[in-house]
């Protein structure tokens, strides 16, 4: 994977949210600190502005109709197979030729057993339908002895998804991620979470298999996206000449002149990469050379 924080991030996010590129499964990983609701609203807003999208909302958590137009299914009213049939009744068959896009939103895929997830997704996904599945990452899970060697739901979904969006709260400078996690693990929800401004980590998988990872900040009220530049640990601990001053009586720092001279030195490995024929062995036969054609191990070249 490569980490990229250029302007391409906002363009790519807009393409993912507007469903411009067909993506069979968009996985959204959230937590109680920042729910995916606002991201779903943003996706629906962007997708509906970009093209004609029909939405099927499959609710495992709420009984309330969302604030956008959609076909609403309350999942707990059905057994899994019936639920698949119910969802499919709102979707076109793969054989149909249609112009509009279809989006199925699952508000908590945690409710589907791990062993049934791949069957569920394979049954719904088609060339006309994209799935947006929300997975709550902070729900405690009881390990099952039957699925001891089977991947977890999150691993399975991350493997299948073409785009993964992890939603994080925008944390104030006074608190840290660890403090937040500690409080949530004790079922204590800190104040000031689930805001309109939040951060996401977008992982986009290309057809080549290459993944691009971007960090962005989203203002869901203003529909504005900004790439987030993170300070790497190396930058914080990088040595500067000032740090070396007054440590010892030796002169450890380098002057500007010395620095320039150092940069101009061509290191030996750079010369070795020029690949001229200087080091090649060139052999020419001479008339007295003894060469046995039948000896398979004799190869003068």
């Amino acid at each position, binding site marked *: 994977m490569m980490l990229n924080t250029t302007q391409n991030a906002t363009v790519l996010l807009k393409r993912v949210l507007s469903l411009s590129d067909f993506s069979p499964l968009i996985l959204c990983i959230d937590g*109680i600190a920042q*729910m995916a*609701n606002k991201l779903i*609203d943003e996706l629906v807003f962007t997708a509906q502005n970009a093209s004609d999208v029909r939405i099927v909302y499959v609710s495992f*958590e*709420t*009984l*309330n109709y*969302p*604030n956008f137009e959609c076909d609403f299914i309350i999942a*707990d009213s059905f057994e899994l197979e019936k639920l698949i049939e119910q969802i499919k009744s709102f979707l076109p068959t793969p054989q149909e030729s249609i112009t509009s896009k279809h989006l199925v939103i699952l508000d*908590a895929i945690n*409710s589907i057993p791990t062993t049934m997830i791949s069957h569920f997704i394979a049954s719904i996904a088609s060339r006309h339908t994209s799935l947006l599945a929300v997975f*709550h990452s*902070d*729900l*405690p*899970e*009881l390990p099952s002895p039957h699925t001891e060697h089977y991947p977890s739901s999150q691993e399975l979904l991350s493997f299948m998804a073409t785009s993964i969006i992890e939603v994080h709260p925008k944390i104030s400078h006074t608190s840290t991620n660890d403090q937040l996690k500690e409080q949530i*693990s*004790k*079922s*204590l*929800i*800190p*104040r*000031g*979470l*689930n805001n309109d401004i939040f951060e996401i980590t977008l992982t986009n998988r290309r057809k080549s298999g290459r993944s691009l990872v971007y960090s962005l900040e989203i203002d869901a009220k203003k529909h504005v996206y900004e790439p987030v530049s993170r300070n790497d640990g190396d930058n914080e601990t990088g040595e500067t000449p000032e740090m070396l001053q007054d440590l010892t009586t030796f002169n450890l720092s380098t002057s500007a002149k010395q620095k320039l001279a150092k940069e101009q030195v061509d290191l030996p490995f750079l010369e070795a990469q020029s690949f001229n024929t200087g080091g090649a062995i060139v052999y020419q036969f001479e008339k007295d050379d003894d060469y046995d054609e039948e000896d398979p191990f004799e190869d003068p070249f």
Partner: protein
Amino acid sequence: MTNVQRQDLVVFDDNSVISSALFSKETHSLISIASAPVTSPFWLISAIMEDLTLGVSNSFNETTESPPAKKYLGPITLVSFIHNAKYFANAFSKIKIPPSSYKVVDLLTDFVLKNSGMPNHKVLSNILKSIPDNQSSVIILEQPEILLSLLDGLTSDDLHRKLINPVMRRCKLLVVTTKLRSLIQETKDGIEASRFTACTYYKSMAILSLRPLETGRAKDVTGCLRITRGGSANTLDCQVQENEYLYFNQKENTRLFYR
């Protein structure tokens, strides 16, 4: 603490405990009350009952001179696994809540005897049958997670699917109280109970959590009440007023102070 100004209990941004906006649309809302094992949430239930039936929480709110008009006139059902009907009648008569304004479904008395040997789905459907179905009502459900320990093989997801969601459908507002467990005890019941609480948070509009003081015991503070937004998308005309209070339970009333 005696000189510190006493505060009113406010959960929603229209300065109410239970906002009238919750009853204005065709919606179903959930409020979670989570408490540590050493803190009882009964005073909060009393405050909600006062607010719903009398229009004001007299136990806390000093600022209202004359009681406002009642904002909620529908039925209230208290479903409890830890208190019987007599307990509610005694407690509510002290704060002048008329007995006609609420109904108690007692799931404490002889619950195990009545349901022994029955399959889980039958027990849950019997519980559902005992809860009135009224789309405009308020239901207060006390500690349903006890069922995770009482019914063999019952999971948190089953409990939500077969009890919490159907009960939510039967009312306008569901208030669920749960006891927080420590994850250090990683038993099956402990993990399922934690998952149950976390799932309830995801469905909640507001989360009211009670915990004791981190510093230990104090003579004039019982614990800390934190009010935060839950995971549910809010489509109503009211917002949760996030706040943190210190509270002090006294014999007749409870005093709140901003933290």
